[in-house]
Every structure is written in C-alpha cells, then in structure tokens.
C-alpha cells in the first residue's frame, strides 16, 4: 500500500479517538484494512510522531503495563484534512481513466 495513504489511514482512525498500537490495527482491520498489520504500524507511528503529526501520552491499562496512546496533533488534523482532499481528487481522476476500460477475457 502507498506509504502516504497508510499514514492517512492511521490519522483517520486516530481522529475517532486516542488509541494504542494494537488498538489501531484492530480499528483498521474492522474496516477491512488488514494489510496494515505485519508490524509496520510501529515505524509508521514513529514517523508520524517525529513529524509532529501525532501526540503521545501514557495511561494505565487494565492490569497490564501502561500503554502508549496516540492522538492527532493540530498539525496532524490539518494533514488529515489535506490528505483526504488530495486522496479523493486522485481517486476521482484515476476512476475517470479506468472507467473507460472494458476488459474482455477470452474463455
């Protein structure tokens, strides 16, 4: 999956509310995006944090070790808004091209 698009998806699920790493993968999988697993979420979150697009804090869990929660920063919310706009424009442009294609498969 395109790297920037996955960043956008992470910001989107964080917009619903703060979440820790595993919880984010659950939210994404509930929406059918299972490819985000594979351990790639941690480097992505690290980059978002380094770029100032997410903020973090620690909170106690039920009986387990404290969890690190992520939430979008102000810059992250702005990046999400711009990214969604760009994604929709790109999707429409690609759809317009692909809509002309008819594929006939000889049997």
């Amino acid at each position, binding site marked *: 999956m395109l790297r920037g698009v996955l960043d956008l998806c992470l910001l989107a699920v964080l917009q619903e509310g703060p979440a820790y790493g595993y919880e984010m993968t659950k939210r994404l999988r509930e929406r059918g995006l299972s490819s985000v697993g*594979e351990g790639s979420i941690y*480097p992505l979150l*690290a980059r978002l944090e*380094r770029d100032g697009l997410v903020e973090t804090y620690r909170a106690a*869990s039920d009986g387990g*070790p*404290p969890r690190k929660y992520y939430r979008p920063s102000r810059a992250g919310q702005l990046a999400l808004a711009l990214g969604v706009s760009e994604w929709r424009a790109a999707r429409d442009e690609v759809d317009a091209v692909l809509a002309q294609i008819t594929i006939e498969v000889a049997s």
Partner: protein
Amino acid sequence: MNEFIEQCRAEWRRIGVAAGDVDELAGELAADLAAAAADGVSLEGFLGASAADPRSFAAAWAAERGLIPAPDGRAGGVRSGRATLIAFTAIAAVVFVAAALLLATGEPKVTLLTAGRLSPLAGGSSFTPPPSRVLTGAAAPIEWALLTFSALALAFCAWQWARRSHARRPGMAL
C-alpha cells in the same frame, strides 16, 4: 512473546539505542502484545511476517524514531579543523617571530638580489656590480612583508579561535 521482546531489546542495544529508549520501546511493545494476547491474537497474528524477524522489526522502528546514533562525522571534522588551525597558528607565529628577530638584529638580511660575479665581459675583464645594487638595504622588504603577512595570519587565527570558543557555549533551547 517475551522472547520476541528480548530479541528486540538485544537488537536495539546492538545498534546503539540508548538504554532509556530501549526500555520505552520494549514497554510499548509489551503492552500491545499483552493486549493482543488478551484478545487471543498470537504474535504472528498481530505482527505478521515481522514476528519471524525481530531484528529487522526492531531496527526499522528505532530508525523511524530517530534513535539510532549517526556516525560521528561532524566531531571528526571538528577535530580535523582544530588540528589545521593549530598548525596554521603555529606556522604564523614562527614566521612572525623570525621576521621580527631579523628586523631587530639586522642580521642576516634576506634579499631578492643575489651577490655574485657576472659572466666575464668581452676582453677578459669582469664586472662586479656596485655593492649598493647587490646587498639589500636597511629597509629589508622581505622581512617586512613576512612580518606583515604573519601578523595578518595571526589576526585571522585569533578570529577563528574566538569563533570556535563562542560556538562551544551552550545555547538556550526555546
């Protein structure tokens, strides 16, 4: 799962991640793995292919967090520049002192002209230029030039040392 975390810890330590950051990364991973286990999700189910390659997983995470120390090339450059400046200052000082001593003592004088006998003239006689044309005068232009240039070089060195001293002072981060 604990074994996976320990392998990640070992990799983080190996690539130079600071101890405090190792604990932070391991703590976050442990908490998430515990949550996955509570949901009945295995390590492979949560991390996929990364579960079989903890070293790559750990290295990629630390790299994106900016926790892997960069090679100390800047420090090497600073040391090299300092050595060059020391050498340049020493040479300028030696030249300055030598030129000053030559001017103060008056001996020996350096000249652009070389004393000597010119080639024999026709008829077998030889010509020796007048002494005033061969020997240098009291003005000693080479010594003065050396003194001037070495003084300028020393001034440049002093400016460079002052800059370095100023740059080493810690600044206040806003």
